[in-house]
């Protein structure tokens, strides 16, 4: 019964079934499945399957976004319980698109795939002032991820790194960048810790930077 509910939650997220995920999650909690298990065996496993399907081009952006929304329906029920129990994620990653740039989708996909890999992802959205990234680092994010799709906005990335250095926060945080406007060469030039060309690369990058297998 418990297994059925967990399998149902996982399948619901993979298939992007909206509207009933909250009830399913509450039902699982009622039968005694711990919130942490629903999170790791249901949602994270589901998002990891979604990430694989995306990499294999079985899923495209729309399907991934709908799965993520289904996951959030369940997460909304779990979050207060997880916070109360103090379960720690692998690491906290802060993601955003830099100031002046409104492209959302690329970094959202990376956030979703990172969530599937077990990271807690805080999304700052798009058009994010440099100061916000610095605040996130000060607040304990282990990784700051920045996206830029316009070559005219990419100098903001260098600005964030400079601000992190000025505040003495640079050593405590890994900075990764991505998006159509940047390259590996640009990442090296501005002193970022890494560049990911797509979501799968971003996950491998974060894991290797944090020394996670």
């Amino acid at each position, binding site marked *: 019964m418990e297994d059925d509910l967990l399998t149902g939650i996982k399948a619901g997220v993979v298939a992007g079934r909206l509207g009933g995920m909250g009830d399913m999650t509450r039902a699982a909690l009622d039968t005694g499945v711990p919130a942490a298990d629903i999170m790791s065996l249901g949602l994270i496993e589901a998002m990891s399957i979604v990430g694989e399907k995306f990499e294999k081009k079985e899923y495209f*952006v729309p399907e991934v976004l709908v799965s993520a929304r289904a996951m959030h329906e369940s997460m909304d029920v779990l979050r207060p319980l997880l916070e109360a129990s103090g379960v720690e994620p692998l690491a906290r990653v802060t993601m955003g698109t830099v100031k*002046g740039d409104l492209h*959302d*989708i690329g970094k959202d996909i990376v956030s979703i795939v990172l969530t599937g890999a077990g990271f807690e992802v805080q999304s700052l959205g798009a058009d994010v002032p440099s100061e916000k990234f610095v605040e996130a680092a000060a607040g304990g994010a282990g990784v700051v991820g920045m996206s830029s799709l316009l070559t*005219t906005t990419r100098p903001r990335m260098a600005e964030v790194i400079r601000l992190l250095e000025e505040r003495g926060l640079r050593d405590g945080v890994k900075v990764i960048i991505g998006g*159509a406007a*940047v390259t590996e*060469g640009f990442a090296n030039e501005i002193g970022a810790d890494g560049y990911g060309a797509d979501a799968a690369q971003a996950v491998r990058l974060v894991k290797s930077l944090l020394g996670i297998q």
Partner: protein
Amino acid sequence: MALIDIIGWVGKRRWARPVGVPMMLAARRIPLATMVRLAGRRICIPSAGYSAIALSGTSVRDNLCDGALMFETLAGAIERFGLEVDGTASDLTIEPGACGCPVTMPDNDTPYVSEHPFSTLEDIRALQVPDPLADPRMRAMTETVRLLSKRFALLTVAGGSGPFTLAAELIGASEAAMNTVMEPALMHELLEYCTRVCSAYLAAIVRAGAEVILIGEPTAAILSPASYKEFSGAYTKRLIDSIPRPVILHICGDAGHLLEGMCATGAQGLSLDAPVDLPSVAQSVPRDVVLIGNLDTVSVLLEGTPERVRESTTAMLESMRPYKNYVASSGCDLSYNTPVENIVAMIETVRGFR
């Protein structure tokens, strides 16, 4: 001297218009692929509208709002680079702006839609198709095209958004993506509207004198092949059927998976970005469809040296040597900051390649 050089030479001279204009009128009866085959050498379309603005010393915003100024800017670039095909700087915020989206226009950067105010079926049903003669920025762009075709007897390329890209601006890209799965009926109603908007605007561009229409459908790159056909390709085909000029369809990023659907739209040219491996897709594209691309706009043209640009351009031209249905170009619009010597290096390498 190749035929395209003669056309370029005649097309730029005012006194040669009595020859140039009939030549362009005759060209209208020739499919794009035939024109490319007859050119005598590779044609180069640098997509350097924003670089032209940087060169002119005037601001991006002023150019996009003032048709006469944009014409002066582009005319300067045509002379400076010796272009044989002239094109406007692409601006995919014109249609969403005319439909009622707020648009932010930085002084020297691509403008962007800052809010996507429509979401429900009621919102969509209340939308009116903007009149290209009444909307100020649609009028500015059509004025640029009119002045270009009055001054130059060249293949003037101009255009606008594809239906899905416009839809994504009206309701937000993530919403548009999710609605293809969750609310397909709403998407279809929205896309019907967007197709009417694009069609009315592009008709005005054609009336102003554009010889080739460029439809930019970047947001469709996020769709699966099946969704592309349903939510972009089918509408793009209807749009293309309504345009009495050859159409080039551009999708940014990795659009390799959409190629079959793009070919089915009736576009005579497919403009593809750097992530697509052109030689490998060239085999599956019909010979009467022209492939256009795809020098990397960031790692090569923005960050590279002229030497690097020459090497990459030569490698690209060599790899496409077996295909006659090919036009050399950058993968996407060049960034405003692209060094001029890199643009020159690309154009000269293409021109000298035999």
